[in-house]
């Protein structure tokens, strides 16, 4: 039997709530080089990201969306990490990195929320790579 997390856990840590209420890099970019949006129909979470790429580096980034604290805080945290790094490094960011950044125990039911922004990054970044090869 799975037990619910205990009452004194830190699921909604202060910095998660802070990222939820004061999201970093929130909004849209004019003429982004990459723009991609994903949703999670089960709970109605939506996350989209706009990227500006200069010499293979993520020069600027914005995200938009709506949904639960986990999905939106995860998106905000991810944009902070992405800003200024080479796109190739961004592509190597994985599930464990994202969950590590959140730093909280995520139940199986909520893992999709936490990883939605990563999905946006992956599909968006690889989508651009595919265009480059054309």
């Amino acid at each position: 039997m799975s037990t619910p997390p205990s009452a004194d856990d830190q699921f909604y840590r202060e910095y998660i709530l802070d990222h939820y209420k004061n999201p970093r890099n929130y909004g849209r970019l004019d003429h982004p080089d990459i723009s991609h949006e994903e949703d999670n129909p089960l709970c109605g979470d939506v996350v989209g990201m706009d990227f500006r790429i200069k010499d293979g580096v993520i020069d600027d980034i914005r995200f938009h969306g709506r949904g639960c604290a986990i999905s939106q805080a995860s998106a905000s945290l991810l944009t902070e990490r992405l800003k200024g790094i080479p796109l190739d490094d961004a592509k190597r960011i994985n599930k464990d990195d994202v969950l590590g950044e959140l730093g909280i125990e995520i139940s199986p039911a909520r893992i999709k929320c936490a990883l939605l922004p990563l999905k946006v990054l992956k599909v968006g970044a690889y989508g651009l790579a595919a265009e480059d090869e054309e």
Partner: protein
Amino acid sequence: MYDVKAVRRDFPIFDNGLAYLDSANTSQRPRQVTGAMMEYFEKFNSNIHRAAYHIAEEATDRYEATREKIRAFINAASTKEIIYTRGTTEAINLVAYSWGRANVKPGDLIVLTILDHHSNIVPWQILATANGANIEYVDIDDRGELRQDQFRELLEKQPKLVSFSHVSNALGTINPVHEMVAAAKAAGATVLVDGAQGAPHQRVDVRDLGCDFYAFSGHKMLGPTGAGILYGRRELLEAMDPFLAGGDMIKTVRVEGTTYHDLPWKFEAGTQAIAEVIGLGAAVDYLDGLGMDNVLAHEREVTDYAYETLSDIEGLTLFGPPPSRRAGVISFALDGIHPHDLATIADRDQVCLRAGHHCAMPLMTRLGVPATARASFYVYTLKDEVDRLAGSIKEAQRIFK
């Protein structure tokens, strides 16, 4: 006097203080139900309708006994009108396939409602695409009640089929089923009522209701998963082709062709969910023991209390009609807090709450929300559990303030 404490003692899952507020999703099951299933497994486990030894006769008798219990439960004319399915979804699919493919013609109209569960929308969409029919949806008003004026207008177009829920699982709206069935029948339509949230919670009399089909799920009425019911008027069922084909649903099979079994077995192909059907019979006995009028009265009381309690919470929006026209379901939203976050916080307090679109995405779109939180009640729900929910809501508001 309805003794909810005594009722709860029959449900071992509550022994550890769980507040289960998700019965519209699936109910809990009392010892009497699991016991009846265990008895089958341990004492007369065998296949039905086939073997010539005594335990198989016992299994067959118990399996068929449920059919009579269900017949009486919904006051059908005959056990031939009671078809076992896996649940409401399969029951509706059976009708959409066996009745729909033969009767719905190009250009025909199917009338559904925006309140409905996906299982009462998608099978009809598939049928409409296959047979070239059109679908129109009855809208709701601001209180979450079906717009009867619009329903009447759609009936003037003489729909072939009208299908709607007895009670909305997402908003708890009790639809005026008697009036709606009567009007749809008068317009010449075949009528299916999705009773997944109806029959478990109130007395249903299908003959008085006058619908052609009524579908419901055992697992929402104290029974196990995997056993549900399609009630169909005999005349219609007789004329319909089988849904699934194979063993048990035949009379004779020759290479030149096959004759089908009589009702109800024509629609029960292959080895059935025997233990589950036996469990469902025990669930009906249990509900009969409580009395459906008492069940309804108890849920009313809890729902009224919950409606009042939640109405008093600032920053909380309730969806759906006033308590007098609502079943034991309350959907709501909190300002600035996503339903999933609330459900996670409630879970820490051992309060089980549903968060999501409740398999009613067209309705969520209509309401303009991605999801709602939903509490739903049943025979065992305590007012104390409603208070615990209110506590979790306040805790969430404190965390998110």
